[in-house]
């Protein structure tokens, strides 16, 4: 199992090095390593250290946050279809940030600070609402999609309403919604790495409680788990990671869904291994999606959400079809 994690980490590091080489100026591996070791030409240094490295780090961090919280949401909702987007965390974060921006509390220009706090609270409330409706009752797994879609649509409409009512803030809200990894530098990485990794680390520590919660509240309580507290920690940690990911890169779908499904065949179902493995695979997926977004139509750059949707959508349909068949058989 240690070999599996080592392998994943090496693949991720290799992918990150490859991503550093991709761009309008192609760089050789030797140059990149020279720069990372602290030497190299000034021109190459500027490209790598100031432009590409923050972007690559951000892609990995966002992927880690989405992948690990996706695994946690799937356990909590007892649903293979759950991901940060489906359970309402992403749209809740966007709406929470929009409220803060419109009411004028957000003073920081980078989108962090109060707007991120709003995003965190918005994500918590939206996921709490979806959980109360979809997971607490005896609904079939597919109904989570309906509840999540309705909540996301209503929140999306609320954001449009806020934008219409407060058009002087329009560009800032749009910046939040569209997101993307382009144009981010070290300031975004500096602001985002701590909350994202904190959320992910807490989820990694909650492996065994997540095992118990993945069987339902009654089963977890019968094992002696303080269910309310454990759920609060899971929701807070996942929402912190997702809200920061949305603040840094906008709403990016399907990574949080796909990463746990790809991780299970490698490390199994126990969450102490599944959550970190999903994080590593999420980082890998987002790195790959960003590389595609930059290179498919170069020099034009596609929004990363377009790439994840094109690749992740069919994957989602396969999972949906399989889980529906299992539910009817069970």
């Amino acid at each position: 199992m240690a070999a599996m994690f080592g392998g994943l980490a090496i693949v991720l590091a290799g992918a990150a090095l490859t991503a550093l080489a991709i761009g309008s100026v192609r760089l050789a591996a030797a140059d990149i390593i020279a720069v990372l070791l602290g030497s190299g030409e000034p021109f190459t240094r500027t490209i790598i250290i100031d432009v590409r490295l923050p972007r690559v780090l951000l892609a990995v961090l966002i992927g880690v946050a989405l992948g690990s919280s996706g695994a946690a949401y799937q356990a909590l909702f007892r649903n293979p279809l759950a991901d940060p987007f489906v359970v309402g965390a992403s749209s809740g974060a966007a709406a929470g940030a929009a409220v803060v921006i419109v009411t004028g509390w957000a003073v920081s220009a980078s989108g962090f600070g109060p707007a991120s706090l709003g995003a965190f609270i918005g994500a918590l409330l939206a996921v709490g609402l979806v959980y109360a409706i979809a997971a607490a009752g005896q609904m079939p797994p597919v109904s989570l999609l309906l509840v999540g879609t309705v909540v996301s649509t209503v929140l999306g409409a609320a954001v449009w309403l806020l934008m219409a009512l407060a058009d002087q803030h329009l560009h800032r809200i749009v910046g939040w919604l569209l997101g993307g990894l382009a144009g981010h530098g070290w300031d975004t990485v500096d602001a985002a790495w701590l909350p994202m990794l904190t959320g992910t680390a807490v989820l990694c520590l909650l492996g065994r409680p997540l095992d118990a919660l993945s069987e339902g509240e009654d089963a977890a309580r019968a094992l002696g788990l303080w269910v309310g507290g454990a759920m609060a920690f899971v929701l807070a940690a996942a929402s912190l990671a997702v809200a920061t990911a949305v603040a840094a890169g906008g709403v990016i779908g399907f990574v949080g869904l796909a990463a746990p499904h790809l991780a299970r065949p490698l490390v199994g179902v126990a969450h102490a291994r599944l959550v970190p493995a999903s994080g590593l695979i999420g980082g890998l997926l987002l790195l790959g999606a960003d590389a595609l977004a930059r290179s498919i139509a170069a020099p034009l750059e596609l929004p990363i959400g377009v790439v994840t949707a094109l690749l992740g959508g069919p994957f989602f349909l396969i999972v949906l079809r399989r889980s529906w068949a299992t539910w009817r058989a069970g």
Partner: protein
Amino acid sequence: MVLASNNLTCGYRQPVLTDVSLTVRSGELFVILGPNGSGKTTLLRTLARLLRPLGGTVALDGKDVWSCSPSQVAAAVAFTSQVLAPGWPFTVREFVALGRAPHRGWWRPLGAYDRRAIAAAMDQLGLCGIQDRPVTELSGGEWQRVRLARALTQEARVLLLDEPTSHLDPRYQFELLSLVRGLTRVRHLAVVMTLHDVNLVGAWADRVALLGQGDVHCEGTPDAVLTGPALTAAYSVPLAVAPHPVTGAAVVSLVPAVVDRVEERR
């Protein structure tokens, strides 16, 4: 005395059962019997500290379970819900090992004692050969044994089993009930199980509580409880009781058509 309820009222918002006073002792197999909707599962969940009573108390060794922490109760009381299809493909061993959580906590890795407890439970239920199999690929009988193995791993003195025989064919019903009764005797457990098959009760239970019309209709040994008049009143349908041709235990049968015809002739 191990588990006792005192003037218990249980239900969700409205009371489903009132004035339930039961005592379950070690080494005793206690069956809760009653028609659909009579509150069997509600009572069992209340005894398991999963549902807060609307009135009265549940006491474990004389101590109110709601004055204990969830893990203190889980270290002494194991609860197995009605059979649900397994959700995630945990391996059999992973699923069983989670039963150590009330003793081990949620962060400490498993120690030598935990491993022995897990191995002993799986050995006792004949699961060692399938310990690496995903629980989603088990037969109904195997899945029930795996769930029971977790309860044993929990080293609880009280076992609360909700409909452990549902969805099992007669052979697995027999295996499971023999096993549970054996454990009751050998490990000196107090076992409470709900059953909806009246005919399993006479042969297996030490004591029975018959629920009906919002309270415990009657309680006692199977011979005392399983009588035509008591069952007819609890289930609101004419039921007859006859001794089993081999064991002599009570066999209950539904006889509406015969009763109607007898009444017509008069």
